[in-house]
């Protein structure tokens, strides 16, 4: 769209005697910043700056990958980390680019907004003296009603019209600039929405195992990981509790691909009674002040360990899925309080127990028993290794609850004491006479609980952005002028291109018409010809009606028939 410059040239400022160099510099920089060229360069920079964020692992997307990257590139990773490469979209350089871009954007739209409001209030300009100089020109027989009738035809086609004596000026396509401004303003609003979400929003992730005893309530401590906006404190979390009652999943028989998930839960919101609810992938649970999303699922084996003193403890530990189709789970059932002497109450830290290994919902017929064949429990099997010793849980070093602290194994504080395959109901008697029973499993789900106060704003501004964009791209601004010539006037030089003018009806007056597309508009010649025909009132009327190509399909914009 070639810009036939819309903005009135600002009157040249009278050169001041001694301009303040600082002010001049500032003014110049501002002018530079808000120029279209700068916007272009910044847009391009923004695109380039987004690339590292897709190539390098990102903490926000996949923190494990970042850890792996540190292991794989011990020299490079810390350097990259220092320049924020693992949080690229929150880094200084990325923020600098988009903040500059948006400053430029605001600096660009504000004066345009002002100019546009002025243009909307202004009347179409006076017709130029020589209409034959305009890109489109025609001479036709004047219609019965003269200028008023011409104005009426134009108005019916939703042109903005002004009649000045024998002259009619009309303009159309203001929506283009309106759309453009709406589009660019919406972009600012999108940014505000994002900012609101990141300041006042929060999210937390955790696993939820089925059963009343595993219910969780919405407090910060109950999450495995949380992300809080800077303006959020743990007191802001809405109070509700959630219990997983049942989880259904269906899989394709042929390849184990999931077909359907559904989690049945009981929600207990503060101030309301407990109520049953269901949710699944693509349809989150919406509670007051938060949304709960289902991100994954797996199995938590239930095992009972009976120690040297005959005391039993039951553990239900989620085994994390390893990412294969058969939902092979990996985890550890730890019993740090095992083998506490009931007589003395003294705990021997070297007699703590842990069982690590794999859970296979459908174990293959033959070994190795390391990969499940199918995600449904058809031949459930626990493949475990037993460890005895100091698990290192008291050392105060935070470790994952889903794996055994390997440092303790390496230093010999924990020793392997046997391996075993267990089917449901089977018992494993260890070397010291203690027993482990595999009782069964419970399903668990992976939840993400989130609150984003900016989302409504984002949705609305995305809508206005799109509407504005359509207006900006598909509407064209153009002007037409008509001048009723006194009867007998000679057609001006340059001749007429309109066949209608060939035989002016004897004695009646003529009308001269000119058209000016203000933005690149290849279909304008067509439109102009139709307009001229409509004004002179000939031709099949039905073809004229609705001939407005405004906002039409751009591919259909016909080329000039001239």
């Amino acid at each position: 769209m070639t810009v036939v410059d819309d903005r009135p040239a600002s009157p040249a400022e009278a050169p001041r005697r001694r301009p303040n160099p600082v002010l001049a510099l500032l003014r110049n920089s501002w002018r530079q910043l808000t120029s279209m060229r700068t916007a272009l360069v910044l847009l391009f920079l923004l695109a380039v700056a987004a690339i590292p964020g897709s190539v390098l692992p990102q903490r926000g997307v996949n923190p494990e990958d970042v850890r792996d990257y540190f292991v794989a590139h011990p020299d490079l990773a810390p350097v990259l980390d220092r320049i924020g490469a693992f949080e690229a979209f929150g880094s200084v350089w990325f923020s600098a680019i988009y903040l500059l871009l948006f400053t430029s954007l605001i600096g660009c739209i504000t004066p345009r907004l002002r100019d546009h409001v002025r243009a909307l209030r202004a009347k179409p300009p006076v017709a130029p003296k020589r209409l034959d100089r305009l890109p489109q020109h025609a001479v036709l027989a004047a219609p019965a009603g003269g200028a008023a009738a011409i104005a009426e035809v134009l108005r019916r086609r939703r042109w903005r019209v002004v009649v000045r004596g024998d002259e009619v000026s009309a303009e159309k396509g203001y929506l283009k600039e309106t759309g453009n401004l709406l589009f660019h303003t919406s972009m600012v609003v999108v940014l505000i929405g994002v900012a609101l979400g990141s300041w006042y929003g929060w999210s937390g992730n955790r696993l939820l195992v089925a059963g009343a005893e595993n219910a969780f309530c919405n407090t910060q401590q109950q999450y495995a990981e949380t992300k809080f906006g800077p303006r959020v404190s743990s007191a802001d979390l809405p109070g509700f509790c959630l219990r997983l009652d049942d989880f259904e999943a269906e899989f394709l028989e042929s390849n184990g691909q999931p077909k359907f998930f559904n989690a049945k839960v009981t929600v207990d919101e503060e101030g309301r009674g407990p109520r049953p609810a269901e949710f699944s992938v693509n349809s989150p649970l919406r509670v007051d002040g938060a949304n709960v999303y289902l991100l994954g699922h797996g199995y938590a084996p239930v095992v009972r360990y009976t120690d040297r003193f005959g005391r039993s403890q039951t553990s239900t530990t989620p085994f994390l899925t390893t990412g294969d189709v058969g939902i092979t789970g990996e985890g550890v059932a730890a019993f740090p309080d095992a083998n506490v002497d009931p007589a003395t109450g003294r705990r021997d830290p070297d007699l703590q127990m842990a069982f690590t290994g794999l859970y296979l919902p459908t174990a293959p017929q033959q070994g190795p028993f390391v990969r499940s064949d199918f995600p449904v429990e058809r031949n459930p099997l626990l493949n475990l290794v037993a460890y005895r010793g100091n698990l290192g849980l008291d050392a105060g070093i935070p470790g994952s609850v889903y794996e055994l602290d390997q440092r303790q194994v390496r230093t010999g504080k924990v020793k392997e004491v046997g391996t075993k395959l267990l089917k449901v109901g089977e018992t494993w008697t260890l070397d010291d006479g203690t027993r482990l029973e595999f009782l069964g499993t419970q399903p668990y789900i992976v939840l993400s609980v989130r609150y984003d106060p900016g989302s409504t704003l984002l949705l609305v501004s995305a809508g206005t952005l799109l509407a504005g964009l359509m207006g900006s791209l598909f509407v064209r601004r153009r002007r037409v002028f008509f001048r009723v010539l006194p009867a007998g006037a000679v057609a001006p030089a340059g001749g007429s291109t309109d066949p209608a003018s060939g035989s002016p009806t004897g004695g009646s007056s003529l009308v001269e018409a000119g058209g000016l597309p203000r933005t690149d508009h290849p279909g304008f010649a067509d439109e102009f010809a139709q307009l001229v025909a409509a004004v002179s009132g000939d031709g099949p009327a039905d073809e004229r009606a609705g001939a407005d190509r405004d906002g039409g399909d751009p591919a259909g914009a016909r080329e000039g028939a001239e």
Partner: protein
Amino acid sequence: MSALSDQLVSFAILAYLVAMISHAVEYALGNARAQVATPARELVGAGVGGAGGSLPAEPAVAGTTAAGRSGHRARLAGRIAVGVTALAALLHFGALVTRGIAADRMPWGNMYEFVLTVSFIGVAAWLVVLWRKPSLRRLGLFLTLVMVLLVATAELVLYVPVVPLVPALNSYWFVIHVSTVVFSSGIFLLGVVPAVAYLMRAGYERGRRSFPYTLAKRLPAAAALERLTFVLHAFAFPIFTFAVIAGAIWAEAAWGRPWGWDPKETWSFISWVIYAGYLHARATPSVRRNVATWLAVVGFCTMLMNLFGVNIFFEGLHSYGGLD
């Protein structure tokens, strides 16, 4: 049904190949007269804003009968090429329909189906363009080349058997988001053809006579190509914008956040920004048209990166390409 679909794809590739060869024949035989015959249509769009593209492409030697005959043959080859392209598009469409019936869903569930659909949209849009502006026919050589490459890549590299959708994809947003992504990608795919042709032709018109530019000797005038490039991009951009927004809405429902800088999202963002840059550049009088057009080409490369690269190189939530 699934087997029928696979066969139809193979036939479609063959047909595109035949169309490409016919176009090449037309190109080889084409002479100046064919061009001079339709100057008015070739210079469309030059009228209002564009620079005049009215340079006589070849010194039109007064019509020897040989030239006349080869011109006639060239036109014939061109018409055959268009006919065969239409036939190929029909086969292509048939392959998509049968694939959809076999899978009992829209055929956009994995990369293979995705590429197949995008390329179909591209060729269908090309036929529409051709219908409205027959003078652009010679672009068909480039288009059919792109089609052969894309569809054959889909068949040879990306092929996967028919399977239903994973639950994350099983949503009406799937239809809305993916259909618009596919549609806009198809138009962008078509848009890059005149963009590249324009860059070559503009160089030729500026008097360059080295390798890639000489290929453009018999292409339509640069101004018309540039105009078509813009029209296609301006048409596709809002649809793509809508697709990205729909994707964000769906991501909110499925993963709990509208935008998470997953690699696929990141590359859509990059494409979007580059195409926005193209539209800006074209609207800025001080930026030369070929700089702007280069941006459109870069934009398309980022689309390709998103389509192929991200599925192959990166692991993300969108990894449902169907490749292991």
